[in-house]
């Protein structure tokens, strides 16, 4: 009973944080002379108000769910993977290159590439003691410029008109206007839940994150555990990039990642790092991103307000949690 209640309390905190973020968003619009009520209406209608809007929200939630899982797994293991953005990009690059061999091979390549990119940071941490919080971020910048080079150079479309790649040779099957990546993402979150809570690997992973020295004394190979957690985390972010390419954009271009990697941090924290709760959290942020896009189209307000909303959610969450847990 006590456990259920605390779970309920936690969800309440989450909903409160989300509500505060949306309210602050409307208020900052008001500071620049927009009507807050009108903004809220656009935000809601643009994200859940019509079938078209709902589909948009669902599509945006897919990469957010996967980058959210990526962050949740890494943070559970106690490694700071802030590199979702870079892993997302290299995942998409690999997916594009492997797309001639079909969807399955393409997505597999995306996961492997994401895992490999994250493993660079893991290797630097384990072999050279370089903090992964910095190396993963630096690798993001490198991936962004690598992508810039690819779409302006070797992978530039044959027509040569825009700095973008040709369309990938494979695409995810469509159900109506929603691609099959939706099911893959949900399956991934169930798999992540299974991994974390129903396997020995997951127990070791969580133990390592909870208390590395205790985990070491319990006979866990902490270094290996960190390396595997980082690789799994990177694979999830890479898969997000692959699915976004094969399901939504079909081409690569310079601003392909659009902040999905960083957004994953807000998604995971709102879900309290729980893989199944991440589904709900990703839907919320998917709606926020979609609604913000509508704000930019109809009210000419920067879609970057979605990033602002993510930051507010994180700050309200951690502030509230600490304020409550203090003696």
């Amino acid at each position, binding site marked *: 009973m006590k456990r259920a209640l605390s779970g309920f309390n936690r969800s309440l905190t989450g909903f409160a944080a989300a509500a505060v973020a949306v309210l602050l968003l409307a208020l900052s619009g008001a500071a620049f002379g927009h009507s807050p009520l009108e903004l809220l209406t656009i935000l809601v209608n643009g994200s859940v108000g019509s079938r078209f809007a709902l589909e948009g929200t669902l599509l945006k939630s897919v990469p957010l769910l996967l980058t959210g899982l990526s962050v949740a797994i890494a943070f559970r293991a106690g490694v700071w993977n802030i590199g979702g953005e870079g892993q997302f990009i290299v995942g998409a690059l690999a997916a594009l290159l492997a797309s001639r061999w079909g969807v399955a091979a393409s997505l597999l390549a995306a996961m492997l590439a994401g895992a490999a990119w994250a493993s660079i940071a893991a290797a*630097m941490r384990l072999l050279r003691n370089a*903090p992964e919080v*910095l190396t993963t971020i*630096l690798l993001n910048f490198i991936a962004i410029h690598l992508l810039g080079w690819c779409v302006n150079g070797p992978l530039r479309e044959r027509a040569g008109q825009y700095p973008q790649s040709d369309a990938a040779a494979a695409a995810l099957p469509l159900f109506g206007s929603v691609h099959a990546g939706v099911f893959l993402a949900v399956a991934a979150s169930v798999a992540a839940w299974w991994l974390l809570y129903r396997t020995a690997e997951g127990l070791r992973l969580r133990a390592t994150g909870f208390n590395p020295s205790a985990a070491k004394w319990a006979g866990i190979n902490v270094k290996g555990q960190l390396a595997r957690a980082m690789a799994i985390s990177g694979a999830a972010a890479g898969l997000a990039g692959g699915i976004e390419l094969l399901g939504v954009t079909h081409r690569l271009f310079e601003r392909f990642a659009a902040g999905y990697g960083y957004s994953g941090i807000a998604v995971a924290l709102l879900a309290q790092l729980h893989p199944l709760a991440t589904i709900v959290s990703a839907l919320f942020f998917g709606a926020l991103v979609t609604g913000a896009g509508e704000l930019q189209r109809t009210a000419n307000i920067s879609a970057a307000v979605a*990033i*602002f909303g993510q930051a507010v959610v994180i700050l309200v969450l951690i502030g509230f949690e600490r304020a409550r847990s203090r003696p």
Partner: protein
Amino acid sequence: MLDLVLDAIPLAIVASVPLLLAVQGELVVQRGGIINLGIEGTMLVAAMTAVLAAQATDSVLLGFAGGIAGALLVALLFGTFVILLRTDQIVTGTAINLLALGLTSFIYRELQQDGVFVDSIPRIEHDVVVPLAWIGIPIVLAILLWNTTFGLRLRACGENPDAVAASIRSHRALALGIEALLAGLAGAYLSLGLSSGFAENMTSGRGFIALSIVIFGRWKVKGALLGTAVFGLAAALQYAMQAASSGIPFHLLLALPYVVTLAILCGVAGRVRAPEALGKN
């Protein structure tokens, strides 16, 4: 090629000023036990408020004051969370960066429609920031950290907070204030001195590079100068290669600073000791 690099060195000395200021600011807070990942966002906000203040007053000096004020506001938010509420420093810093990026992009678009960022900004006539960043501030910081009671206590806050008789909070808050001053100066110099205005996400990772250089410099002022100089040399090389049209694609040259930073981190990080209580609340 060598003369091209030599020609690029003066440019690199000037261009690395925001980075150098950020490194020194981060050095101070980390000595006190706080990792401020949010320095990236702090500089970004400062770059914007500096332009706004400079345009409103038509004065460079007040522009810099505006930049510092913006940075102090961000530091106040970060400090409230990290020092008062004792939230996780990495998560808070990441949130601050997202907040700064979202807020500045939002305001930029709002005010651009009013033509605010289109007007030209006043130019710096006598550039005192460069000697200040490379000579004046390092001397002051070295004395402050190693020859004052405040410095001793602040370093104790970073090594073993339990051993500090005085208030840890006030020492860390003051260190954060010093960092905000330097990060504000850095952001203002970025938008008023190096560029002619604000651009979205114009800090482009300088804050994270600064954190890496603090490690490279082993949390010492001398090391901060040396690390920034090494990095500046790499930047000069990059400019020279761009000027010489070396055949290396432009986008790969853009990635070079981050590759150099990774190399720097891997080269030294294994052999340095961080302040004992760094990052712990």
